[in-house]
């Protein structure tokens, strides 16, 4: 098996040297502070998100209101057009014949009365 150590004879010394060069800072205070800095930046991201939302909420509400009004106007116009069409249809339909407009019962009474007068 290949010797994977950096320096087979005195590997420890050099690796120790490398470790001390690349050593992470010791002490909890440092890490607590770093954690606080990271979390502060995370909170900024959250804040940015809300700020962005806040920035967009007014234009979004205005756009929604405009859309609502436009939809209302369109619905009103559609309703009005429907009513106009119905009225036009009624007015343009053929007139009812006079004979059918007179009640048959009334016609019969009149004939009976004439027959009665001339029959005397």
């Amino acid at each position, binding site marked *: 098996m290949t010797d994977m150590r950096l320096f087979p004879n005195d590997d420890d010394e050099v690796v120790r*040297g490398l470790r001390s*060069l690349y050593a992470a800072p010791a002490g909890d205070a440092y890490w607590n502070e770093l954690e606080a800095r990271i*979390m502060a930046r995370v909170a900024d991201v959250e804040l940015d998100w809300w700020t962005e939302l806040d920035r967009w909420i007014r234009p979004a509400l205005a756009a929604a209101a405009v859309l609502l009004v436009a939809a209302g106007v369109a619905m009103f116009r559609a309703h009005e057009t429907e009513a106009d069409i119905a009225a036009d249809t009624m007015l343009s339909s053929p007139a009812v014949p006079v004979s059918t407009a007179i009640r048959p019962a009334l016609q019969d009474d009149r004939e009976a009365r004439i027959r009665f007068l001339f029959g005397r």
Partner: protein
Amino acid sequence: MTAATTIELPIGMSSAADARADERALVVAAQRGSSEAFARLVRLHQRRAYAVCRAIVSTHEDAEDAVQEGFLHAYKALDRFLPDQPFGAWLYRIMANASLDLVRRRKVRDADELPETVPIPFRDPGESDELRRRLSEALTRLTDRQRSVIVLHDVEGFTHGEIGGMLGIPEGTARSDLHHARAALRRILKDVRSDL
């Protein structure tokens, strides 16, 4: 992820399996909007995340910046993470990407400006050892990727596969980079060591 909801967070860890389950619970809670859970994940991973970033960038300050950027990216992408996957591997890949981005930005900036100062690696106040000083110099003569691979492998103990995943290179390339980095370091340090 907005308003934090009341979520039961794990309190302690007893074994590796429990730790994994606890971490999964934290991830799920963080995905549901608990910033406390995300803070716990930061606490759990920030040291290792720093080590990954530090292996890629050239200074302690850049490593700090990359860690913060990395956690921020992770937070924003948390919804897309599948909780059944290992969180650490996912997070360290994000850290490596944040570090590589920073290195690229620094290179562009340095190409635009005349360097006023040479970046000085972070050192412990007690560091005065000649070997470490020269080791530091020798490391600057390696390529960025060779340096990252050797530190991630020999100092941080990541496998070739993990390193490949983090740096976006095939495992075989990570392996050969490590071989070349070691050879270069041996060559550079050969004279130094005979002087000591």
